[in-house]
């Protein structure tokens, strides 16, 4: 009987340890697996973020637009949104793209919405 209760205590401790570990070291968000909170054009997103209230920061969005600038590790979509990409794809200026990523907020220095963890998801 005594032995049985020890086994139960040990099992409970193991379960608590595993749950605790999984809570402390949970995975990062996978933006590409999340459902987009906003779907629309890059310029529509800019209008929303320069408006009275920003409710889209730190959310996942899916944007349509065309490339207006290519940079070291990202691109500018429709002169409205800077998308930081993990790898630089072979795209050209004026090319139409659909991009999914996370909104960081409005960058008042460059007057662009800033996004990270972006990926081109054109069909």
């Amino acid at each position, binding site marked *: 009987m005594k032995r049985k209760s020890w086994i139960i205590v040990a099992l409970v401790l193991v379960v608590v340890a595993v749950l605790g570990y999984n809570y402390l070291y949970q995975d990062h968000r996978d933006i590409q697996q999340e459902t987009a909170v906003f779907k629309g054009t890059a310029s529509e997103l800019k209008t929303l973020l320069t408006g009275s209230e920003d409710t889209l920061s*730190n959310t996942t969005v899916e944007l349509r637009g065309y490339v207006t600038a290519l940079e070291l590790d990202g691109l500018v979509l429709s002169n409205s949104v800077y998308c930081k990409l993990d790898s630089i794809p072979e795209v050209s200026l004026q090319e139409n793209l659909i991009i999914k990523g996370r909104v960081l907020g409005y960058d008042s*220095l460059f007057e662009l919405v800033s996004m990270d963890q972006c990926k081109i998801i054109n069909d």
Partner: protein
Amino acid sequence: MLLLCSSIGMAQKFGTKAGSIAFEASVPSFEPVAAKHSSVSAVLNSDNGQLAVLALVTGFRFDIALMEEHFNENYMESEVYPKAVLKGEIKDFDFKAINAGKTAFQFSGSLEIHGVVQAFETELQLSKADQDLLLSARFALKPEDFNIEIPKIVAKKIADEVWVDVQLQLKSI
């Protein structure tokens, strides 16, 4: 006339949208408290040394997801205070004096974090690489100066001084 126009025309500016700011507030034998932001914006006016750096706080990435969540929700309150802004002037800025080697300058201005604006001075280094200007700076900040409360229960795991490392590759814009 064209030459005259170009020489007195728009101020020469350098900028980046992909600068990096890393910080570390680790205490030995505890979990490292460190994060990096690689989408920092900055603009430098090379006529007068005016510098502005903007980091959207949600862009700081930690190795540990839960730490990142607590940083945004409990400490920086990034929904309420989304921006960290450094603004001011690089004293005695002389574009021509900067070369491939690092030259030290003094920066004087303000630093806004967590909605608190503080007067701020630090040394920074500038060098030229091809057509770009490379700016680097390292300084220590105290969370309490910016009304960032560290709960007692975790205070031992977070250093009193947070070391901040700024690296900007500024291109002509």
